[in-house]
């Protein structure tokens, strides 16, 4: 039998949760502050990047390719999906390299290693909040009412975040052993984006292909965001439950995988 056993006296046990909670916030704060400190434009980049992305895609897809969006203008139809996607994309690519980026800590101090990818995901929520504010301004400009269905937004977001955490745990742990992951993740996210109805609508997908599209857990999530924000409708419950089930199962397995791999991080990092 092998293993490290670290029993703690009772008063330490009580502190343990609190102690890692504080560390979690400190690391999240570090992620946020570093981004702000290293560039002149600082946090404006967070808003600038998706806005430019939005402008380019809007021009291309409003004029060249007509996307049926109901009574909603295309830019806002796109933005509602682009914001959560950008959040996920940034969170996953940041989290993937997070364990490596903290290699000094991994090899020197005993810490629950999942704190690194998790704090990256948390720090990206600040970006999401900022772009979310821009979205609210857009909604007002385009005179889209704020529907009662918005109360479902936290639920959709929760499912989304669980999915992000699951993927982040798997990729960040695997990246310690195979640095290829870091290079592949951008590519993977790009392909995934085009397979998800973000720049187009699910109605454009031929009926025979649709079930296949809904196997992608992001299809249900993105579609739900649109339904509750833009159209004031309930989400497609079947699709959303599938996404929820998929995300929870994935994150559960991802956590077991991460914990198992984490024991060997310091050996190879």
């Amino acid at each position, binding site marked *: *039998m*092998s*293993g*490290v*056993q*670290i*029993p703690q*006296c009772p008063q*330490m046990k009580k*502190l343990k949760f*609190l*102690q890692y909670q*504080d*560390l979690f*916030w*400190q*690391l999240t704060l*570090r992620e946020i*502050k*570093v981004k702000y*400190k*290293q560039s002149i434009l600082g946090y404006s980049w967070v808003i600038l990047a998706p806005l430019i992305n939005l402008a380019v895609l809007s021009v291309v897809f409003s004029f060249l390719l007509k996307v049926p969006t109901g009574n909603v203008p295309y830019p806002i139809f796109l933005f509602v999906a682009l914001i959560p996607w950008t959040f996920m994309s940034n969170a996953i690519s940041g989290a993937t390299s997070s364990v490596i980026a*903290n290699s*000094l*800590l*991994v*090899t*020197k*101090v*005993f*810490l629950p290693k999942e704190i690194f990818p998790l704090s990256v995901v948390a720090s990206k929520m600040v970006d999401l909040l900022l772009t979310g504010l821009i979205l609210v301004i857009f909604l007002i400009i385009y005179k889209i009412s704020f529907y009662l269905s918005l109360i479902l937004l936290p639920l959709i977001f929760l499912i989304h975040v669980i999915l992000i955490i699951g993927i982040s745990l798997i990729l960040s742990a695997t990246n310690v*052993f*195979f*640095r*290829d992951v870091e290079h592949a993740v951008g590519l993977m996210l790009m392909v995934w984006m085009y397979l998800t109805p973000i720049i187009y609508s699910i109605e454009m997908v031929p009926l025979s292909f649709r079930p296949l599209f809904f196997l992608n857990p992001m299809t249900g999530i993105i579609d739900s965001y649109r339904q509750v924000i833009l159209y004031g409708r309930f989400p497609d419950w079947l699709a959303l439950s599938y996404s929820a089930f998929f995300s929870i199962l994935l994150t559960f397995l991802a956590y077991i995988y991460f914990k198992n791999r984490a*024991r*060997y991080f*310091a*050996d*190879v990092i």
Partner: protein
Amino acid sequence: MLFNMKKDTVVEFNKVSKKFCKGQKLLLKEALLDFLRPLKEDFWALKNVSFKIKKGESIGIIGVNGSGKSTILKLIAGVLTPSSGNVFVNGRISPLIELGAGFHPEFTGRENIYLNGTILGLSKKEVDKKFDDIVRFSELSDFIDTPVKHYSSGMYMRLGFSVAVNVDPDVFLIDEILAVGDAAFQKKCLDKMKEFQKQGVTIVIVSHSSQLVKDFCNRVILIEKGEIASIGLADKVILKYGQP
């Protein structure tokens, strides 16, 4: 497996071995190549090491480079997992394996104290309480709001040491670090360590400097090629190490 540990044992190694695979496969390419010619070289950094450290003891671990000293420290710190055997640790550990691990160069001294403090296991409130002590000990109050990238290496170490000693550890791990900083600060560090000794803090020092170990430790472990060559009173073991 349960240990019959006496209350006063802080660290216990029970037939601990640690294996490293030579040539880590960090890229898929290498892993594939490795698969094609499965030639695995294992390196045993530690072989069947057993010892106990009692509460309040100051113990030195000596040996030449690559003998496995730092591996022992990392196993105590809980960073490495043993390949076989058991490591048992009781209490809060302040790893001094590398001072200032986790410092961010863009952050000010103040921000790094909070970051490093929570990394070493303090809560934010505890850092609040100890903040003044840490700054006073480091003698860096004039520079505390300067990003640490502008610090000299000596200042960097001073800040790192000041955080580490204020964590109130039960076990203090030291890896060759007291060689840094100017003479005055070195003495201050040594005095602080002596104070810890009096307070009954367990200290584990890894070093090839026999002098430091001789000054500090009542017991010494001599490691050779991953095995315990000798263990016992400082003077006797250091003689075997062959250096005065």
